[in-house]
């Protein structure tokens, strides 16, 4: 595939950014969820 | 009190404060003049500078507007004036219009002076058949800038730590006004096209002015409620 670098690069940047954001949100969520009693969590 | 009376009172008060604090005359005007000179140094080509003169004038106006709004809201915040007005139950829309009118008047004077500077520094020439377009654009752009500056100024300016927010919030709104006002004035001066070509651009600026006049009237109250 010609221009493979740019194309793979685009996909890599896209999914790396999404993964990084998702990771951060999950980690923060875990840290916070531990300190909050379940009755204060609307999704439980 | 009727809204118009309150607005007028606020405008007069703002202009009086300005007369005493002299922010616009002592701080902003020299800043604007320096900016105009710096443009010439940076661009370093008479032909280029003459061609882009309208854009430079509006750019200098924008930068000056930011500085002006910052400094004036800072003066207010130091006295807690905005809070006092709110607590007293004054209609926030009237406060908005009063402040916007005062800001518009100061900006209008600034713009005339900057145009004069352009005539001197950038060899700008005015055309008789472009005067109507020039004046209407000047009014519309000034109203647009003043309403936007007052609206976001109330939110972002005056309190330490918030000042960098003002350019960020203002930029996406004010950039299209810059586009429209520059193209309109270019047409009015005949540097690009003829005055007839400029009217659609004036229309764009006018729509912004109306939109942010309306938006500001509604949004100013909730925005400064903190």
């Amino acid at each position: 595939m010609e221009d493979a670098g740019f194309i793979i690069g685009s996909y890599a940047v896209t999914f790396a950014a999404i993964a990084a954001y998702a990771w951060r949100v999950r980690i923060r969520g875990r840290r916070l969820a531990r300190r909050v009693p379940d009755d204060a969590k609307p999704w439980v | 009190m009727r809204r118009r009376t309150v607005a007028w009172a606020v405008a007069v008060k703002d202009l009086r404060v300005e007369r005493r604090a002299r922010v616009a005359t002592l701080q902003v005007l020299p800043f604007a003049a320096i900016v105009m000179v710096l443009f010439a140094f940076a661009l370093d080509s008479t032909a280029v500078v003459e061609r882009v003169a309208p854009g430079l004038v509006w750019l200098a106006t924008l930068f000056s507007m930011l500085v002006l709004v910052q400094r004036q809201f800072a003066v207010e915040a130091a006295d807690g004036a905005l809070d006092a007005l709110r607590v007293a139950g004054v209609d926030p829309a009237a406060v908005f219009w009063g402040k916007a009118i005062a800001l518009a008047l100061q900006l209008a004077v600034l713009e005339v002076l900057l145009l004069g500077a352009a005539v001197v520094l950038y060899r700008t020439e005015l055309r008789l058949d472009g005067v109507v377009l020039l004046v209407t654009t000047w009014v519309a752009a000034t109203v647009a800038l003043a309403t936007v500056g007052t609206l976001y100024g109330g939110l972002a300016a005056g309190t330490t730590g918030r000042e960098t927010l003002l350019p960020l919030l203002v930029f996406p709104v004010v950039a299209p006004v810059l586009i429209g006002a520059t193209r309109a004035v270019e047409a009015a001066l005949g540097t690009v096209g003829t005055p007839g070509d400029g009217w659609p651009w004036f229309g764009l600026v006018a729509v912004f002015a109306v939109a942010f006049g309306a938006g500001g009237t509604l949004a100013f109250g909730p925005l400064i409620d903190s």
Partner: protein
Amino acid sequence: MQVRSAPQPGTRDTGSRATRTLGLVTLVGIAWLLAFGLGFSPADRDQRESVRILYVHVPSAWLAYLAFVVTAVASGLYLFRKQHSLGWDHLAGASAEVGVLFMAITLVSGSLWGRLTWGEFWQWDARLTTTAFLFVTYVGYLAVRRLGGDHHQRARRSAVVALLAVLEIPLVHWSVRMWRSLHQEATVLSPDGDVKMDGLMLFSLIVGVIVFTLLYAWMVIHRQRTLTLEDVLDDEGLDAAIVERRREAEQPGVGSVAR
């Protein structure tokens, strides 16, 4: 609400059965997108392989716009309903954050696509310029959310800014289009799939849109829940401070006493 800081038994994170299912489906979708986008779909006649970038660029653009519409609607629901429920504020904030993320991806992928097809990383064309403007607008919105004050002050302020931002979108779009029509560039190609897509190419694009929608939903749900948790903990911190203050006030001669 009781003040606790010790770890509680029960759920340890912001997940639920719905999000776990959603996450699984999304991962499968991503695998499909990679397979079709990078593999099974053909190269384009004009753009050749660079069309593959569009399978992530176009969906992220659409989802960014959707995200901002959701922010605006949620802001309106917070502002104009009597309960002023903070849940809407959390949704607005979460959606805007994800929207900004997608917009950044749009700009980066678009610029890489541009490098391949136009030879330039950036063009002042109407769509790219408008996207850049919106990016700045919503970064501003996120900054406004951090200005401080209590939850409802933050919610009201950001809701107003979000609605103003929505007002700005058509105005910016219109003015940038007028501006660019002055400088007509004869490009047949534009980064929005004005290129005729059919068959496997269209399928790949649709897969992209579905996957990005799932990703959007998953990220917004989790982010909204963390925002809820942050507010709850904020309130707890405030409650604890009030309890402390009262305790101080009750002790004669100790600390400052409120009269």
